[in-house]
């Protein structure tokens, strides 16, 4: 890049953060002299692991947090962003990871909420609002029906509503916080098209992510953050995936597919025609059949909310199947209590880590024994809990799983997502575990911890544990699974061999299009 163009670009910087510092509790330097520049009309990826300081930076840009030191310039003018309203007034808008929409209101109502157009009588001017929204959606190619109820929309469509909300407020700088986390591959591609169009219309986009693939698809430039510091500013052309991973994590991480190992012959889990019925007689799990052998990792792919959670709960006996059977090594489980199923050696990493996997308001050692608090050696007899023994056990697990915690009495709420998940994994992967149901075990977990948790799960599989690995991250599934089962609306749309799986055909199966795989494959499993 020549001197000249560089200078030209400097002038074009719509947003400059100069030396931003932010400390939490006087100790943790969440943002350490961060210098960040966003040019007009670019998609700028902000890369970093969980806890690297991406969100802190974004919170400062969006006025949720104020920097301790440093300045923010918007269009060359120094600006103080004290609250989100100030950020919006300066043309900064944010699409949060969890979409902030009101399901019972229409698309139009959601968009204008907080910036309503009024008629002369002071009532809501729906007609003008609808017209403006239609104009916007034509200009940016965002197809939306202003009168549709948000609750009826897909996640991808809801995200468009969020984007429209920002455009309606005349935002020029759009911040996307992990926007593809809940999208299917196809929806992600559609989103990227929208981003490109926004870019072409002169909007500047900050794209927060930890998925490297996406960076190469969409980003013009990227800034990598680690430990609150900028590690580097680069472009996709200059840096390859390995180098980028190294920048993010600070060490090399294997992204290779695992080496296949010998599987046992014995079928551990055998699910046959299982049906779980939810509210409104909706079939959450619809006639699902599959089996997992000892040492096998069965990946379960699918957009979230397509029956994976219900299936996991059915195996654990938390949800009941109304038809079919679930057998563990030949014995029927579907009539057993959860306690009994657990005793049979079924481990579970639930997808809602903080809601169902841990007790955040309790200490590490207490969280380590949730399954076994009433068993020997922790409880030598029914009226005595041997806390000394429990603490000792927790200490061993902490060092075994290299959990970053001062000691075993630390409250779990104070740990990072990665360390929290390691506690769940350490608790569930005991020696007696014969079947592990791992649901989204690496979601919201930093790369190093995710890698570690994956490897521990694979280790357990190598020792003969059957694993059902539920994930919405296809890359992860293709890395760890022997076979991948795809679920759509509670049904199994296909089971493919891990070696033969590719993103495209899995993506099609995730949307219920079964013609994506060879027909003999389907016959074999259906």
């Amino acid at each position, binding site marked *: 890049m020549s001197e000249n163009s560089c200078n030209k670009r400097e002038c074009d910087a719509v947003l400059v953060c100069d030396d931003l510092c932010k400390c939490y509790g006087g100790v943790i330097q969440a943002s350490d002299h961060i210098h960040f520049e966003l040019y007009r009309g670019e998609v700028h990826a902000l890369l970093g692991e969980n806890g690297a300081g991406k969100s802190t930076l974004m919170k400062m840009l969006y006025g949720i947090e104020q920097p301790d030191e440093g300045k923010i310039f918007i269009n060359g003018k120094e600006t103080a962003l004290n609250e989100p309203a100030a950020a919006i007034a300066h043309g900064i808008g944010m699409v949060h990871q969890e979409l902030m929409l009101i399901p019972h209101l229409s698309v139009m109502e959601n968009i204008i909420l907080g910036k309503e157009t009024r008629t002369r009588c002071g009532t809501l001017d729906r007609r003008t609002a609808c017209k403006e929204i239609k104009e916007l959606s034509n200009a940016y190619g965002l197809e939306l029906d202003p009168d549709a109820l948000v609750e009826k929309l897909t996640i991808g469509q809801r995200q468009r509503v969020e984007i429209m909300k920002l455009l309606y407020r005349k935002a020029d700088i759009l911040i996307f916080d992990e926007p593809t986390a809940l999208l299917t591959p196809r929806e992600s591609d559609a989103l990227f098209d929208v981003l490109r169009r926004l870019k072409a219309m002169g909007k500047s986009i900050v794209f927060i992510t930890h998925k490297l693939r996406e960076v190469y698809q969409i980003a013009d430039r990227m800034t990598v953050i680690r430990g609150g510091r900028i590690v580097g500013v680069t472009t996709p052309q200059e840096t390859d995936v390995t180098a980028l991973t190294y920048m993010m994590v600070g060490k090399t991480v294997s992204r290779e597919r695992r080496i296949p190992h010998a599987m046992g012959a014995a079928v551990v889990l055998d699910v046959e025609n299982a049906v779980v019925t939810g509210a409104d007689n909706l079939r959450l799990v619809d006639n699902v059949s599959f089996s997992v052998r000892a040492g096998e990792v069965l990946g379960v792919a699918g957009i979230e909310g397509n029956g994976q959670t219900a299936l996991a709960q059915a195996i654990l006996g938390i949800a009941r199947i109304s038809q079919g059977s679930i057998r563990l090594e030949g014995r029927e489980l579907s009539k057993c209590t*959860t306690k009994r199923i*657990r005793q049979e050696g079924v481990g579970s990493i*639930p997808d*809602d880590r903080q809601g*169902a*996997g841990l007790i955040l308001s309790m200490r590490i050692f*207490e969280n380590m024994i*949730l*399954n076994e608090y009433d068993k020997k050696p*922790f409880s030598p007899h029914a009226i005595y809990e041997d806390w000394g023994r429990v603490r000792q056990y927790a200490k061993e697990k902490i060092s075994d799983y290299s959990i970053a915690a001062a000691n075993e009495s630390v409250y779990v709420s104070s740990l990072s997502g990665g360390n929290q998940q390691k506690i769940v994994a350490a608790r569930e992967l005991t020696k007696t575990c014969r079947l592990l149901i791992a649901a989204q075990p690496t979601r919201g977990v930093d790369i190093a911890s995710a890698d570690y948790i994956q490897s521990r799960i694979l280790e357990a599989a190598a020792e003969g544990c059957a694993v059902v690995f539920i994930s919405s991250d296809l890359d992860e599934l293709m890395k760890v699974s022997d076979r991948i089962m795809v679920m759509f609306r509670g049904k199994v749309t296909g089971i493919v061999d891990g070696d033969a799986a590719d993103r495209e055909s899995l993506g099609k199966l995730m949307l219920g299009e079964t013609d994506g795989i060879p027909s003999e494959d389907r016959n074999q499993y259906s």
Partner: protein
Amino acid sequence: MKKSGIRLSVFSLILALLLVGFTIAATGRNPVSVYGAILAGSFGSVKGFLNVLAYMLPLVMTGLGAAVAFQSGVFNIGGEGQVLVGGLASVIVGLLVPFPAPWGYLAAMTAGFLAGAVWAVLPTLIAGRNLASLSVATIMMNSIAELLTEYIVKQFFQREGASNTETVVVNDGCILPRFFPSTQFNYGIFVAVISVLLVTWLLYKTPFGFSLRAMGNNPRAMEQAGVPIYRRTLAAMFISGGLFALGGSIQCLAVYKRFVMGFSPGYGWDGITVATLAANSPAGVLLSAFLFGMLRSASINMSLTNQVTTEMISVLQGLIVILVASPMVWTTMRNLLDAAKGRVSLLFQKKAEVDVK
């Protein structure tokens, strides 16, 4: 009890005392002398102190009842009804059973415990697994208990010639003895202390207690772990209801020696307050029940000496609870303090800069 819990309670207590102090001052009286009178009334004489202990006893029991329920994440708001039912059951046994002391009053207390426990389990069975409807169901059981006890007393046990709804005095062996005839302080203190020890041991030293506390903190995690949540809820309600009821039993068997309609000025409700101030710790319940005993004792003496209305004590109690139950007050105060500190240091900085110039 977590450290933050202790800090919050002490802070709320001090803030409440200050606020009520201002109110007293605004009505033209000296808050220092009022608070002095409360302390003097409680610690100034042996009799006064024993009276405070006597007022404390039912509150310890109901406080423990609430603490067990809250630690298990079960909202038992039916304490008042359980107190009434427990009191009546104890008195009925006391009227019918001819055992000598201590068997008489032990039998009566046991009956009280069981009656309260059943009275608490009943709405749990009706409400089923829905915790939200459980609190509504328990609260409704209060009114039922009030009218039911009145009906039973009037119908079967009404003392001839009494203007109140009340029973005759229970058999001698069933009266819970007082230590000194001149004060109401009674053997209930043994029940209270043993209950505190037992509940502490149950919650913190047994696997069962751990499962209750863990359920209270996150029932879904325990469901995942295979703990039968509904059975634990029933168990927590059983214990909680029994403890609430013992508060009524002590009051009926030791203080009134009979069942008098309206004997409870709201022990069941105060138990929730006591437990809240104690951050649901059994040992803390002992302390906060003592404090509330002091206030109750003072509210009876106060109006005579300082002419501060007894309502002022209720205001103080209410304020304490509002403050404890509103952690935001604590954060807001700290933020204000920090802001003030920042402004002061800025002022000094500017002054220093000016000085340098």
